[in-house]
Protein backbone atom coordinates (compact mmCIF):
# COMPACT_ATOMS: atom_id res chain seq x y z
CA UNK A 1 0.00 0.00 0.00
CA UNK A 2 1.13 3.48 -0.80
CA UNK A 3 2.50 5.42 2.11
CA UNK A 4 0.49 8.55 2.58
CA UNK A 5 2.68 9.79 5.39
CA UNK A 6 1.98 13.26 6.69
CA UNK A 7 -1.17 13.65 4.63
CA UNK A 8 -2.95 11.11 6.78
CA UNK A 9 -2.14 12.96 9.95
CA UNK A 10 -3.13 16.20 8.33
CA UNK A 11 -6.54 14.87 7.36
CA UNK A 12 -7.18 13.60 10.87
CA UNK A 13 -6.11 16.95 12.25
CA UNK A 14 -8.40 18.89 9.92
CA UNK A 15 -11.33 16.73 10.94
CA UNK A 16 -10.46 17.21 14.59
CA UNK A 17 -10.35 20.98 14.07
CA UNK A 18 -13.61 20.85 12.11
CA UNK A 19 -11.88 22.64 9.27
CA UNK A 20 -14.50 21.86 6.67
CA UNK A 21 -12.78 23.42 3.69
CA UNK A 22 -9.47 21.67 4.21
CA UNK A 23 -11.02 18.31 5.09
CA UNK A 24 -12.92 18.25 1.83
CA UNK A 25 -10.00 19.51 -0.22
CA UNK A 26 -7.56 17.02 1.19
CA UNK A 27 -10.01 14.10 1.13
CA UNK A 28 -10.69 14.78 -2.51
CA UNK A 29 -6.99 15.03 -3.24
CA UNK A 30 -6.23 11.74 -1.48
CA UNK A 31 -9.05 9.89 -3.22
CA UNK A 32 -7.92 11.18 -6.59
CA UNK A 33 -4.39 10.04 -5.80
CA UNK A 34 -5.76 6.55 -5.32
CA UNK A 35 -6.46 6.21 -1.63
CA UNK A 36 -8.94 3.45 -0.86
CA UNK A 37 -12.20 5.13 0.19
CA UNK A 38 -12.54 2.69 3.07
CA UNK A 39 -9.12 3.67 4.29
CA UNK A 40 -10.02 7.32 3.99
CA UNK A 41 -13.16 6.66 5.98
CA UNK A 42 -11.03 5.15 8.74
CA UNK A 43 -8.96 8.32 8.88
CA UNK A 44 -12.03 10.50 9.01
CA UNK A 45 -13.42 8.28 11.75
CA UNK A 46 -10.23 8.69 13.71
CA UNK A 47 -10.67 12.45 13.45
CA UNK A 48 -14.29 12.09 14.53
CA UNK A 49 -13.21 10.07 17.57
CA UNK A 50 -10.99 12.96 18.54
CA UNK A 51 -13.92 15.32 18.09
CA UNK A 52 -15.85 13.04 20.44
CA UNK A 53 -13.05 13.23 22.99
CA UNK A 54 -12.97 17.01 22.77
CA UNK A 55 -16.70 16.98 23.37
CA UNK A 56 -16.26 14.80 26.42
CA UNK A 57 -13.57 17.08 27.77
CA UNK A 58 -15.92 20.04 27.21
CA UNK A 59 -13.71 21.72 24.66
CA UNK A 60 -16.40 21.15 22.06
CA UNK A 61 -20.15 21.54 22.48
CA UNK A 62 -23.27 20.51 20.59
CA UNK A 63 -22.82 23.24 18.00
CA UNK A 64 -19.46 21.66 17.16
CA UNK A 65 -20.94 18.17 16.90
CA UNK A 66 -23.41 19.49 14.37
CA UNK A 67 -20.55 20.82 12.29
CA UNK A 68 -18.75 17.48 12.64
CA UNK A 69 -21.81 15.63 11.37
CA UNK A 70 -22.05 17.91 8.39
CA UNK A 71 -18.40 17.43 7.47
CA UNK A 72 -18.83 13.69 7.71
CA UNK A 73 -21.85 13.76 5.43
CA UNK A 74 -19.97 15.80 2.87
CA UNK A 75 -17.01 13.42 2.88
CA UNK A 76 -19.43 10.59 2.17
CA UNK A 77 -20.85 12.71 -0.63
CA UNK A 78 -17.55 13.02 -2.51
CA UNK A 79 -17.76 11.36 -5.95
CA UNK A 80 -15.31 8.57 -5.22
CA UNK A 81 -16.98 7.81 -1.91
CA UNK A 82 -20.38 7.56 -3.52
CA UNK A 83 -18.97 5.25 -6.17
CA UNK A 84 -17.50 3.01 -3.51
CA UNK A 85 -20.72 2.87 -1.58
CA UNK A 86 -22.69 1.93 -4.65
CA UNK A 87 -20.36 -0.89 -5.64
CA UNK A 88 -19.56 -2.71 -2.46
CA UNK A 89 -21.76 -2.42 0.59
CA UNK A 90 -19.53 -1.47 3.43
CA UNK A 91 -19.84 -3.92 6.26
CA UNK A 92 -22.26 -2.33 8.64
CA UNK A 93 -21.91 -3.20 12.28
CA UNK A 94 -25.62 -3.04 13.02
CA UNK A 95 -29.01 -1.63 12.15
CA UNK A 96 -30.74 1.02 14.21
CA UNK A 97 -34.35 2.12 13.88
CA UNK A 98 -34.62 5.67 15.16
CA UNK A 99 -37.28 8.28 15.76
CA UNK A 100 -38.55 11.08 18.00
CA UNK A 101 -41.56 9.72 19.85
CA UNK A 102 -45.14 10.88 19.41
CA UNK A 103 -46.02 14.30 20.73
CA UNK A 104 -42.52 15.68 20.25
CA UNK A 105 -41.30 17.34 17.07
CA UNK A 106 -37.69 18.04 18.09
CA UNK A 107 -35.05 16.51 15.87
CA UNK A 108 -31.66 18.02 16.68
CA UNK A 109 -30.57 15.45 19.26
CA UNK A 110 -31.87 12.64 17.12
CA UNK A 111 -30.01 13.95 14.09
CA UNK A 112 -26.75 14.26 15.99
CA UNK A 113 -27.17 10.71 17.28
CA UNK A 114 -27.96 9.50 13.78
CA UNK A 115 -24.91 11.21 12.31
CA UNK A 116 -22.66 9.72 14.96
CA UNK A 117 -24.15 6.25 14.51
CA UNK A 118 -23.53 6.43 10.77
CA UNK A 119 -20.03 7.69 11.35
CA UNK A 120 -19.49 4.62 13.49
CA UNK A 121 -20.66 2.18 10.85
CA UNK A 122 -24.30 1.71 11.74
CA UNK A 123 -27.06 1.54 9.19
CA UNK A 124 -29.84 3.82 10.40
CA UNK A 125 -33.49 4.05 9.46
CA UNK A 126 -34.77 7.40 10.64
CA UNK A 127 -38.54 7.69 11.04
CA UNK A 128 -38.45 11.42 11.75
CA UNK A 129 -40.41 13.15 14.51
CA UNK A 130 -43.76 12.72 16.24
CA UNK A 131 -43.64 8.98 15.47
CA UNK A 132 -46.53 6.92 16.86
CA UNK A 133 -45.80 3.55 18.48
CA UNK A 134 -47.64 1.74 15.69
CA UNK A 135 -45.16 3.16 13.19
CA UNK A 136 -42.19 2.00 15.26
CA UNK A 137 -43.67 -1.50 15.32
CA UNK A 138 -44.50 -1.56 11.63
CA UNK A 139 -41.03 -0.39 10.62
CA UNK A 140 -39.48 -2.82 13.07
CA UNK A 141 -41.17 -5.68 11.22
CA UNK A 142 -39.95 -4.40 7.85
CA UNK A 143 -36.42 -3.41 8.76
CA UNK A 144 -35.56 -5.90 11.53
CA UNK A 145 -33.14 -3.61 13.36
CA UNK A 146 -30.81 -4.72 16.13
CA UNK A 147 -31.49 -1.58 18.09
CA UNK A 148 -34.46 0.71 18.53
CA UNK A 149 -33.64 4.32 19.41
CA UNK A 150 -36.33 6.49 20.99
CA UNK A 151 -35.62 10.19 21.12
CA UNK A 152 -37.37 13.03 22.93
CA UNK A 153 -36.80 16.47 24.38
CA UNK A 154 -40.06 17.17 26.18
CA UNK A 155 -40.17 15.74 29.70
CA UNK A 156 -43.52 14.16 28.91
CA UNK A 157 -41.83 11.76 26.48
CA UNK A 158 -40.86 9.48 29.37
CA UNK A 159 -44.40 8.14 29.33
CA UNK A 160 -44.58 8.08 25.55
CA UNK A 161 -41.38 6.06 25.36
CA UNK A 162 -42.80 3.63 27.88
CA UNK A 163 -45.85 3.22 25.65
CA UNK A 164 -43.63 2.30 22.72
CA UNK A 165 -41.77 -0.27 24.79
CA UNK A 166 -45.06 -1.67 26.08
CA UNK A 167 -46.30 -1.96 22.51
CA UNK A 168 -43.22 -4.02 21.65
CA UNK A 169 -43.88 -6.24 24.67
CA UNK A 170 -47.47 -6.76 23.60
CA UNK A 171 -46.43 -7.59 20.07
CA UNK A 172 -44.09 -10.23 21.48
CA UNK A 173 -40.95 -8.72 19.95
CA UNK A 174 -39.50 -6.90 22.92
CA UNK A 175 -36.86 -9.59 23.48
CA UNK A 176 -35.67 -9.40 19.89
CA UNK A 177 -34.41 -5.85 19.98
CA UNK A 178 -32.31 -3.66 22.22
CA UNK A 179 -33.95 -0.37 23.09
CA UNK A 180 -32.10 2.82 23.87
CA UNK A 181 -33.83 6.01 25.04
CA UNK A 182 -32.21 9.36 24.34
CA UNK A 183 -32.91 12.81 25.76
CA UNK A 184 -31.47 15.40 28.05
CA UNK A 185 -34.13 14.76 30.69
CA UNK A 186 -33.51 11.03 31.05
CA UNK A 187 -32.14 9.37 34.17
CA UNK A 188 -31.47 5.77 35.20
CA UNK A 189 -34.76 5.81 37.04
CA UNK A 190 -36.66 7.11 34.02
CA UNK A 191 -34.96 4.44 31.91
CA UNK A 192 -36.15 1.67 34.22
CA UNK A 193 -39.63 3.15 34.17
CA UNK A 194 -39.61 3.24 30.37
CA UNK A 195 -38.34 -0.33 30.24
CA UNK A 196 -35.49 0.49 27.87
CA UNK A 197 -32.20 -1.40 27.96
CA UNK A 198 -30.13 1.74 28.11
CA UNK A 199 -30.38 5.50 28.01
CA UNK A 200 -28.22 8.45 27.12
CA UNK A 201 -28.54 12.16 27.65
CA UNK A 202 -25.64 12.58 25.31
CA UNK A 203 -25.35 11.26 21.75
CA UNK A 204 -21.75 10.11 22.11
CA UNK A 205 -22.63 8.00 25.15
CA UNK A 206 -25.55 6.56 23.22
CA UNK A 207 -23.30 5.50 20.39
CA UNK A 208 -20.92 3.84 22.84
CA UNK A 209 -23.77 1.86 24.31
CA UNK A 210 -24.91 0.74 20.88
CA UNK A 211 -21.41 -0.34 19.95
CA UNK A 212 -21.08 -2.32 23.15
CA UNK A 213 -24.34 -4.06 22.47
CA UNK A 214 -23.26 -5.01 18.98
CA UNK A 215 -19.91 -6.32 20.05
CA UNK A 216 -21.04 -8.42 22.99
CA UNK A 217 -24.13 -10.08 21.61
CA UNK A 218 -24.02 -9.90 17.87
CA UNK A 219 -26.79 -7.42 18.41
CA UNK A 220 -29.37 -10.10 18.92
CA UNK A 221 -30.05 -9.30 22.51
CA UNK A 222 -28.53 -12.51 23.84
CA UNK A 223 -27.87 -10.97 27.23
CA UNK A 224 -31.05 -9.01 27.22
CA UNK A 225 -32.85 -8.90 30.52
CA UNK A 226 -35.36 -6.09 30.13
Amino acid at each position, binding site marked *: MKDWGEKEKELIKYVEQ*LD*EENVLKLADELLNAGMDPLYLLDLVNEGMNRVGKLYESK*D*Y*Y*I*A*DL*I*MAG*LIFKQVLGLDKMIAQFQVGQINKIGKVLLGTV*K*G*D*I*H*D*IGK*DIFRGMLEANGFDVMDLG*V*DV*PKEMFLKKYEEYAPHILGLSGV*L*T*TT*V*DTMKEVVDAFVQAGVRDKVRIIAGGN*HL*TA*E*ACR*YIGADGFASDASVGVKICKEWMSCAGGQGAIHHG
Partner: protein
Amino acid sequence: MARERTQLFRDVIDGNIPKRVPVCVSFSIEFAIQYAGKNLAEAQWDTGQLEEIFDQICRDFYSDLLPVNAFRFPSFYKLLGARNFVMSSNGFLQHPEVEGLLQEEYDDFIASPYNCIIEKILPRLYTELDTDAATRALALAKAFKAFHDEMGNAVMIYGRLNQKYGYADINLFAGFTEAPFDFVADQLRGFKGISTDIRRVPDKVEAAVDAATPLMIKAGLQPFASKYNATFIPLHMAPFMRTKDFERFYWPSFKKLVDALAEAGHPSYLFVEHDWMRYLDHLYELPAGTIMRFEYGDPKLVKEKLGDKHIISGFYPVALLKTGTRQQCIDKAKEIIDILAPGGRYIFDFDKVPITLDSLNVENARAVLDYVAANAGY
Protein backbone atom coordinates in the same frame (compact mmCIF):
# COMPACT_ATOMS: atom_id res chain seq x y z
CA MET B 1 -52.82 39.51 51.18
CA ALA B 2 -51.90 41.00 47.80
CA ARG B 3 -50.13 43.83 49.58
CA GLU B 4 -48.12 41.50 51.75
CA ARG B 5 -47.15 39.41 48.77
CA THR B 6 -46.22 42.45 46.72
CA GLN B 7 -44.00 43.52 49.58
CA LEU B 8 -42.14 40.20 49.48
CA PHE B 9 -41.12 40.81 45.89
CA ARG B 10 -40.46 44.51 46.35
CA ASP B 11 -38.12 43.70 49.21
CA VAL B 12 -36.25 41.18 47.10
CA ILE B 13 -35.96 43.63 44.22
CA ASP B 14 -34.96 46.50 46.52
CA GLY B 15 -32.26 44.37 48.12
CA ASN B 16 -34.00 44.16 51.49
CA ILE B 17 -34.62 40.93 53.33
CA PRO B 18 -38.29 40.01 52.90
CA LYS B 19 -40.47 38.45 55.57
CA ARG B 20 -40.36 35.18 53.68
CA VAL B 21 -38.91 33.76 50.47
CA PRO B 22 -41.45 34.64 47.79
CA VAL B 23 -42.79 31.77 45.74
CA CYS B 24 -43.14 32.27 42.02
CA VAL B 25 -43.95 29.14 40.08
CA SER B 26 -45.83 28.81 36.86
CA PHE B 27 -47.45 26.00 34.98
CA SER B 28 -47.82 25.76 31.23
CA ILE B 29 -51.17 26.10 29.55
CA GLU B 30 -50.86 22.44 28.54
CA PHE B 31 -50.39 21.38 32.16
CA ALA B 32 -53.37 23.47 33.23
CA ILE B 33 -55.64 22.03 30.53
CA GLN B 34 -54.72 18.46 31.41
CA TYR B 35 -55.07 19.16 35.12
CA ALA B 36 -58.59 20.39 34.45
CA GLY B 37 -59.29 17.19 32.54
CA LYS B 38 -59.86 18.94 29.22
CA ASN B 39 -58.72 18.08 25.73
CA LEU B 40 -55.37 19.67 24.95
CA ALA B 41 -56.02 20.72 21.36
CA GLU B 42 -59.62 21.79 21.89
CA ALA B 43 -59.02 23.98 24.91
CA GLN B 44 -56.21 25.87 23.21
CA TRP B 45 -58.52 26.68 20.34
CA ASP B 46 -61.64 27.33 22.38
CA THR B 47 -60.15 29.73 24.89
CA GLY B 48 -63.57 30.43 26.43
CA GLN B 49 -62.79 27.64 28.89
CA LEU B 50 -59.50 29.16 29.90
CA GLU B 51 -60.56 30.96 33.06
CA GLU B 52 -62.04 27.87 34.62
CA ILE B 53 -58.92 25.92 33.63
CA PHE B 54 -56.44 28.42 35.06
CA ASP B 55 -58.57 28.89 38.16
CA GLN B 56 -57.99 25.28 39.15
CA ILE B 57 -54.24 25.78 39.11
CA CYS B 58 -54.53 28.92 41.25
CA ARG B 59 -56.82 27.08 43.63
CA ASP B 60 -54.61 24.03 44.09
CA PHE B 61 -50.98 25.22 43.84
CA TYR B 62 -49.47 27.80 46.13
CA SER B 63 -47.72 30.75 44.54
CA ASP B 64 -47.27 34.41 45.43
CA LEU B 65 -47.46 35.41 41.78
CA LEU B 66 -50.04 34.31 39.24
CA PRO B 67 -48.95 30.73 38.44
CA VAL B 68 -50.27 30.61 34.88
CA ASN B 69 -49.14 32.54 31.85
CA ALA B 70 -49.96 31.66 28.27
CA PHE B 71 -49.14 33.83 25.33
CA ARG B 72 -48.90 31.46 22.40
CA PHE B 73 -52.26 30.43 21.08
CA PRO B 74 -52.65 28.22 18.03
CA SER B 75 -55.31 30.43 16.43
CA PHE B 76 -53.04 33.21 15.24
CA TYR B 77 -50.18 30.89 14.37
CA LYS B 78 -52.53 28.76 12.30
CA LEU B 79 -54.02 31.80 10.54
CA LEU B 80 -50.51 32.76 9.52
CA GLY B 81 -49.59 29.26 8.45
CA ALA B 82 -46.71 29.38 10.91
CA ARG B 83 -43.81 27.03 10.46
CA ASN B 84 -42.01 28.25 13.59
CA PHE B 85 -44.77 27.29 16.02
CA VAL B 86 -46.57 24.08 15.20
CA MET B 87 -48.87 21.75 17.08
CA SER B 88 -47.85 18.11 17.30
CA SER B 89 -50.31 15.23 16.92
CA ASN B 90 -51.26 15.32 20.60
CA GLY B 91 -51.96 19.05 20.66
CA PHE B 92 -48.64 20.27 22.01
CA LEU B 93 -47.50 23.53 20.41
CA GLN B 94 -43.75 23.45 19.72
CA HIS B 95 -40.98 25.32 18.02
CA PRO B 96 -39.47 23.16 15.29
CA GLU B 97 -36.16 23.82 13.60
CA VAL B 98 -36.81 26.54 10.99
CA GLU B 99 -34.79 28.49 8.50
CA GLY B 100 -36.26 31.95 8.00
CA LEU B 101 -33.12 33.28 6.36
CA LEU B 102 -30.90 31.43 3.91
CA GLN B 103 -27.17 31.52 4.42
CA GLU B 104 -26.68 33.49 1.21
CA GLU B 105 -29.10 36.16 2.44
CA TYR B 106 -27.03 37.28 5.42
CA ASP B 107 -25.94 40.42 3.61
CA ASP B 108 -29.54 41.48 3.04
CA PHE B 109 -30.29 41.09 6.72
CA ILE B 110 -27.16 42.93 7.78
CA ALA B 111 -27.87 45.82 5.40
CA SER B 112 -31.45 46.27 6.55
CA PRO B 113 -32.74 43.81 9.12
CA TYR B 114 -36.23 45.24 9.31
CA ASN B 115 -36.80 45.19 5.56
CA CYS B 116 -35.34 41.74 5.30
CA ILE B 117 -37.69 40.46 8.02
CA ILE B 118 -40.70 41.93 6.24
CA GLU B 119 -39.74 40.95 2.73
CA LYS B 120 -37.98 37.62 3.10
CA ILE B 121 -38.24 36.13 6.55
CA LEU B 122 -41.90 36.54 7.42
CA PRO B 123 -43.15 35.01 4.15
CA ARG B 124 -40.84 32.07 4.71
CA LEU B 125 -41.86 31.45 8.32
CA TYR B 126 -45.55 32.14 7.72
CA THR B 127 -46.86 30.45 4.60
CA GLU B 128 -50.03 32.58 4.50
CA LEU B 129 -47.84 35.65 4.05
CA ASP B 130 -46.15 34.08 1.07
CA THR B 131 -48.81 35.28 -1.34
CA ASP B 132 -49.82 38.39 -3.25
CA ALA B 133 -50.04 41.70 -1.42
CA ALA B 134 -53.82 41.76 -0.94
CA THR B 135 -54.12 38.20 0.35
CA ARG B 136 -51.14 38.74 2.58
CA ALA B 137 -52.58 41.92 4.06
CA LEU B 138 -55.81 40.11 4.80
CA ALA B 139 -54.04 37.16 6.40
CA LEU B 140 -52.02 39.50 8.60
CA ALA B 141 -55.11 41.46 9.59
CA LYS B 142 -56.96 38.28 10.52
CA ALA B 143 -54.05 36.97 12.54
CA PHE B 144 -53.67 40.25 14.43
CA LYS B 145 -57.37 40.33 15.14
CA ALA B 146 -57.10 36.82 16.57
CA PHE B 147 -53.95 37.76 18.49
CA HIS B 148 -55.60 40.77 20.12
CA ASP B 149 -58.76 38.83 20.88
CA GLU B 150 -56.82 36.01 22.50
CA MET B 151 -54.46 38.24 24.43
CA GLY B 152 -57.25 40.54 25.52
CA ASN B 153 -59.19 37.59 26.82
CA ALA B 154 -56.11 36.17 28.55
CA VAL B 155 -55.16 39.46 30.17
CA MET B 156 -58.68 39.92 31.52
CA ILE B 157 -58.54 36.43 32.96
CA TYR B 158 -55.18 37.15 34.58
CA GLY B 159 -56.60 40.34 36.09
CA ARG B 160 -59.56 38.54 37.58
CA LEU B 161 -57.42 35.71 38.95
CA ASN B 162 -54.96 38.20 40.40
CA GLN B 163 -57.83 39.82 42.28
CA LYS B 164 -59.53 36.66 43.33
CA TYR B 165 -56.39 35.04 44.73
CA GLY B 166 -54.60 38.17 45.91
CA TYR B 167 -51.39 37.68 43.98
CA ALA B 168 -48.52 40.12 44.17
CA ASP B 169 -48.71 43.21 42.03
CA ILE B 170 -45.46 42.91 40.15
CA ASN B 171 -44.93 41.58 36.66
CA LEU B 172 -41.97 39.54 35.52
CA PHE B 173 -43.40 39.25 32.01
CA ALA B 174 -44.15 42.92 31.36
CA GLY B 175 -41.95 42.73 28.27
CA PHE B 176 -40.49 39.98 26.15
CA THR B 177 -37.44 39.79 23.94
CA GLU B 178 -34.62 37.49 22.92
CA ALA B 179 -30.85 37.69 23.09
CA PRO B 180 -29.82 38.88 19.61
CA PHE B 181 -27.82 35.72 18.90
CA ASP B 182 -30.76 33.55 20.00
CA PHE B 183 -33.05 35.48 17.69
CA VAL B 184 -30.75 34.90 14.75
CA ALA B 185 -30.44 31.24 15.74
CA ASP B 186 -34.04 30.39 16.64
CA GLN B 187 -35.96 32.32 14.02
CA LEU B 188 -33.55 33.03 11.19
CA ARG B 189 -31.05 30.21 10.79
CA GLY B 190 -32.06 27.32 13.05
CA PHE B 191 -29.90 25.52 15.59
CA LYS B 192 -28.14 23.51 12.91
CA GLY B 193 -27.77 26.45 10.57
CA ILE B 194 -26.23 28.78 13.12
CA SER B 195 -23.88 26.07 14.40
CA THR B 196 -22.36 25.70 10.95
CA ASP B 197 -22.51 29.43 10.17
CA ILE B 198 -20.26 30.37 13.08
CA ARG B 199 -17.57 28.30 11.40
CA ARG B 200 -18.34 29.00 7.77
CA VAL B 201 -19.30 32.67 7.80
CA PRO B 202 -18.30 33.94 11.24
CA ASP B 203 -18.05 37.60 10.26
CA LYS B 204 -21.53 37.58 8.82
CA VAL B 205 -22.98 35.97 11.93
CA GLU B 206 -21.35 38.61 14.06
CA ALA B 207 -22.66 41.40 11.83
CA ALA B 208 -26.17 39.89 11.72
CA VAL B 209 -26.30 39.63 15.51
CA ASP B 210 -25.22 43.27 15.78
CA ALA B 211 -27.83 44.27 13.21
CA ALA B 212 -30.54 42.46 15.19
CA THR B 213 -29.60 44.10 18.49
CA PRO B 214 -31.50 47.41 18.11
CA LEU B 215 -34.62 45.45 17.13
CA MET B 216 -34.29 43.21 20.16
CA ILE B 217 -33.85 46.23 22.43
CA LYS B 218 -36.92 47.85 20.94
CA ALA B 219 -38.93 44.66 21.37
CA GLY B 220 -37.96 44.46 25.04
CA LEU B 221 -38.93 48.01 26.01
CA GLN B 222 -42.09 48.42 28.06
CA PRO B 223 -44.45 51.39 27.85
CA PHE B 224 -43.58 52.52 31.38
CA ALA B 225 -40.44 52.10 33.43
CA SER B 226 -40.76 50.36 36.78
CA LYS B 227 -38.20 48.41 38.69
CA TYR B 228 -40.95 46.00 39.69
CA ASN B 229 -41.85 45.09 36.12
CA ALA B 230 -39.31 43.02 34.27
CA THR B 231 -38.72 42.10 30.66
CA PHE B 232 -38.54 38.36 30.21
CA ILE B 233 -35.64 36.99 28.15
CA PRO B 234 -35.47 33.21 27.77
CA LEU B 235 -31.87 32.33 26.93
CA HIS B 236 -31.08 29.48 24.63
CA MET B 237 -27.89 28.86 22.66
CA ALA B 238 -25.02 29.83 24.98
CA PRO B 239 -24.51 26.51 26.81
CA PHE B 240 -24.32 24.67 23.50
CA MET B 241 -21.40 26.74 22.22
CA ARG B 242 -17.72 26.87 22.97
CA THR B 243 -16.77 29.58 25.44
CA LYS B 244 -14.65 31.18 22.75
CA ASP B 245 -17.61 31.34 20.38
CA PHE B 246 -19.90 32.56 23.16
CA GLU B 247 -17.57 35.43 23.92
CA ARG B 248 -17.45 36.50 20.33
CA PHE B 249 -20.96 35.85 19.03
CA TYR B 250 -23.32 35.72 21.99
CA TRP B 251 -22.19 37.82 24.88
CA PRO B 252 -21.46 41.36 23.57
CA SER B 253 -24.87 41.95 21.99
CA PHE B 254 -26.70 40.24 24.84
CA LYS B 255 -24.98 42.45 27.39
CA LYS B 256 -25.80 45.47 25.28
CA LEU B 257 -29.46 44.44 25.28
CA VAL B 258 -29.72 43.98 29.05
CA ASP B 259 -27.77 47.20 29.65
CA ALA B 260 -30.04 49.16 27.31
CA LEU B 261 -33.17 47.82 28.97
CA ALA B 262 -31.76 48.66 32.40
CA GLU B 263 -30.93 52.17 31.26
CA ALA B 264 -34.52 52.58 30.13
CA GLY B 265 -35.63 51.47 33.60
CA HIS B 266 -36.56 47.88 32.86
CA PRO B 267 -34.92 45.06 34.80
CA SER B 268 -34.46 41.83 32.89
CA TYR B 269 -35.82 38.50 34.02
CA LEU B 270 -33.65 35.80 32.46
CA PHE B 271 -34.46 32.17 32.08
CA VAL B 272 -30.93 30.80 32.20
CA GLU B 273 -31.62 27.63 30.29
CA HIS B 274 -29.48 24.52 30.68
CA ASP B 275 -26.12 24.93 32.43
CA TRP B 276 -24.38 28.33 32.49
CA MET B 277 -21.77 27.60 35.14
CA ARG B 278 -19.02 28.40 32.61
CA TYR B 279 -20.44 31.89 32.22
CA LEU B 280 -21.04 33.06 35.79
CA ASP B 281 -18.34 35.73 35.56
CA HIS B 282 -20.09 37.07 32.49
CA LEU B 283 -23.47 37.07 34.18
CA TYR B 284 -21.97 38.98 37.06
CA GLU B 285 -21.28 41.86 34.67
CA LEU B 286 -24.97 42.43 33.95
CA PRO B 287 -26.69 45.39 35.64
CA ALA B 288 -27.32 44.91 39.37
CA GLY B 289 -30.66 43.39 40.23
CA THR B 290 -31.05 41.29 37.09
CA ILE B 291 -33.35 38.39 37.94
CA MET B 292 -31.96 35.04 36.86
CA ARG B 293 -33.85 31.81 36.94
CA PHE B 294 -31.45 28.90 36.62
CA GLU B 295 -32.19 25.47 35.27
CA TYR B 296 -29.09 23.37 36.02
CA GLY B 297 -25.78 23.92 37.75
CA ASP B 298 -24.47 24.50 41.23
CA PRO B 299 -26.66 26.74 43.41
CA LYS B 300 -23.82 27.23 45.91
CA LEU B 301 -21.49 28.55 43.27
CA VAL B 302 -24.17 30.82 41.86
CA LYS B 303 -25.01 32.23 45.28
CA GLU B 304 -21.37 32.83 46.00
CA LYS B 305 -20.60 34.51 42.69
CA LEU B 306 -23.83 36.37 41.92
CA GLY B 307 -25.79 36.48 45.17
CA ASP B 308 -24.68 39.95 46.24
CA LYS B 309 -25.52 41.62 43.00
CA HIS B 310 -28.35 39.76 41.27
CA ILE B 311 -31.59 38.04 42.18
CA ILE B 312 -31.49 34.26 41.94
CA SER B 313 -34.31 31.87 41.26
CA GLY B 314 -34.97 28.38 39.91
CA PHE B 315 -32.86 25.24 40.48
CA TYR B 316 -35.63 23.19 42.09
CA PRO B 317 -35.68 20.02 39.92
CA VAL B 318 -39.12 19.31 38.48
CA ALA B 319 -37.84 15.81 37.65
CA LEU B 320 -37.66 15.02 41.37
CA LEU B 321 -41.32 15.92 41.75
CA LYS B 322 -42.06 13.04 39.42
CA THR B 323 -39.79 10.38 40.84
CA GLY B 324 -39.13 11.38 44.47
CA THR B 325 -41.07 10.64 47.63
CA ARG B 326 -42.91 13.45 49.34
CA GLN B 327 -40.20 13.71 51.98
CA GLN B 328 -37.38 13.72 49.45
CA CYS B 329 -39.11 16.52 47.58
CA ILE B 330 -39.51 18.63 50.71
CA ASP B 331 -35.93 17.95 51.80
CA LYS B 332 -34.72 19.16 48.42
CA ALA B 333 -36.65 22.41 48.81
CA LYS B 334 -35.12 22.90 52.23
CA GLU B 335 -31.65 22.21 50.86
CA ILE B 336 -31.98 24.74 48.05
CA ILE B 337 -33.53 27.39 50.29
CA ASP B 338 -30.76 26.96 52.84
CA ILE B 339 -28.25 27.71 50.12
CA LEU B 340 -29.99 30.50 48.25
CA ALA B 341 -32.13 32.33 50.80
CA PRO B 342 -29.54 33.78 53.20
CA GLY B 343 -29.23 37.53 52.72
CA GLY B 344 -32.34 37.79 50.51
CA ARG B 345 -32.27 38.28 46.73
CA TYR B 346 -33.91 34.93 46.19
CA ILE B 347 -37.25 33.85 44.72
CA PHE B 348 -38.33 30.22 44.96
CA ASP B 349 -39.10 28.61 41.62
CA PHE B 350 -38.77 25.28 39.83
CA ASP B 351 -35.90 24.74 37.41
CA LYS B 352 -38.34 24.66 34.52
CA VAL B 353 -42.04 25.07 33.86
CA PRO B 354 -43.87 21.74 34.23
CA ILE B 355 -45.15 21.33 30.70
CA THR B 356 -47.60 18.48 31.04
CA LEU B 357 -49.48 16.83 33.85
CA ASP B 358 -47.32 13.72 33.73
CA SER B 359 -44.13 15.80 34.20
CA LEU B 360 -44.65 15.58 37.94
CA ASN B 361 -46.55 14.01 40.79
CA VAL B 362 -49.17 16.61 41.70
CA GLU B 363 -49.13 15.71 45.40
CA ASN B 364 -45.38 16.27 45.57
CA ALA B 365 -45.63 19.64 43.86
CA ARG B 366 -48.32 20.78 46.26
CA ALA B 367 -46.41 19.54 49.29
CA VAL B 368 -43.28 21.42 48.24
CA LEU B 369 -45.09 24.69 47.53
CA ASP B 370 -47.01 24.53 50.80
CA TYR B 371 -43.80 23.74 52.63
CA VAL B 372 -42.00 26.76 51.21
CA ALA B 373 -44.94 29.08 51.88
CA ALA B 374 -45.12 27.94 55.50
CA ASN B 375 -41.45 27.50 56.34
CA ALA B 376 -39.24 29.79 54.31
CA GLY B 377 -39.54 32.76 56.66
CA TYR B 378 -36.53 34.90 57.49
